[in-house]
């Protein structure tokens, strides 16, 4: 009953509640701050990696548990190596220049960092720029190395639960090393 009532509330209140929580946690984790984000790229401040890796480990275990046991759907994006790599590199360049990413930029604005509005304006313009070139990109870059939907378990031919356990141990190890080096 409880589950049903949550599922039935309007399509707006769920993303609003979850967005409030996400913005809250981004700010509390410190990743809405310019010097923290740029500090990570300069390898001076590892807050971003700590937040991301902790979220990935906890999120992965729960999401795969829900997927395997409850039947919750995964939402996989196709692997297109050319587009993933080229787009990823361009994103990285922009990230370093701007100091905020699309989600943390919104969080930065929330805590009062007014220049984040300029980044957000750029994000709107760049999105339209992509749409403008989408016909060309679809027929070129986005066809390079198009492998379809691929996950680590499917590529390795391993059971999802085994892969999740192995990745959880690996990423926790990385977190432990980062933590130890800094203290």
């Amino acid at each position, binding site marked *: 009953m409880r589950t049903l009532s949550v599922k039935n509330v309007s399509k707006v209140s769920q993303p609003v509640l979850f967005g409030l929580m996400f913005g809250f946690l981004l700010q509390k984790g410190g990743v809405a701050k310019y010097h923290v984000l740029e500090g990570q790229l300069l390898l001076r401040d590892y807050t971003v990696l700590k937040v991301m890796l902790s979220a990935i480990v906890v999120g992965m275990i729960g999401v795969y548990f829900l997927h395997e046991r409850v039947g919750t759907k995964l939402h996989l994006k196709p692997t297109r190596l050319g587009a993933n790599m080229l787009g990823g590199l361009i994103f990285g360049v922009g990230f370093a220049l701007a100091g905020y990413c699309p989600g943390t930029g919104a969080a930065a604005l929330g805590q009062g960092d007014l220049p984040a509005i300029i980044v957000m304006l750029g*994000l709107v313009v760049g999105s339209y720029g992509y749409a403008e070139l989408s016909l060309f990109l679809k027929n070129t870059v986005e066809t390079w190395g198009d492998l379809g939907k691929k996950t680590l378990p499917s590529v390795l031919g391993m059971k999802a639960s085994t892969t999740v356990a192995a990745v959880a141990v690996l990423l926790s190890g990385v977190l432990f090393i980062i933590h130890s080096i800094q203290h």
Partner: protein
Amino acid sequence: MKPYIKHTAFVVTLFSSVSLFAQTPLQDGSTYSIGGSWSPYVAGGLIGILTWLTFYFSEHPIGASSFYATVAGFIGKAVAPRHTHKLPYYRENPPRLKWEFWFVLAIILGSALAAASSGELALQGLPLMWIEQYGPDSGLGYASLSFVGGVLMAFGARLAGGCTSGHGLSGTLQLNISSWVAVICFFLGGLVTIRLIY
């Protein structure tokens, strides 16, 4: 709406109890605060739990960048409706007030609440880190980099299929190959570029 109030109360209680033990010092003696007011492991772990909720209840992964594409699509539709409608991206993803739209708007408010709760809510202009490097009269340079950075990020995110949220968090935790490739490239591009600025 009653169960909703219960859930909200639960979330507020959870956050406030976590904040009691997750506090970290905000100042390290330098001119700006070191990081967040909560431990990054606690904040990250809770973001991980939040992804369970969005997958289970909304059947939707966390993502942010498509918010900006939606806004751009709305503006395009208002200014040049015919042209915008012809673009393959908007034909496949017509601008609608979908999940990410409300999600990203709420991020702004959620962050404001978090900042207010630890006394960090304050209007700020140029970041101190930037001023230390380039001085207080470098606003135009900062604004230009911010704008160009935003343009490149949105373009890159659409080409790669997501941003630090959609790929970097939701995709990686699903062990999606494209997301791990993309997020490694995010950092590679960033690590090189930052050396040109600082």
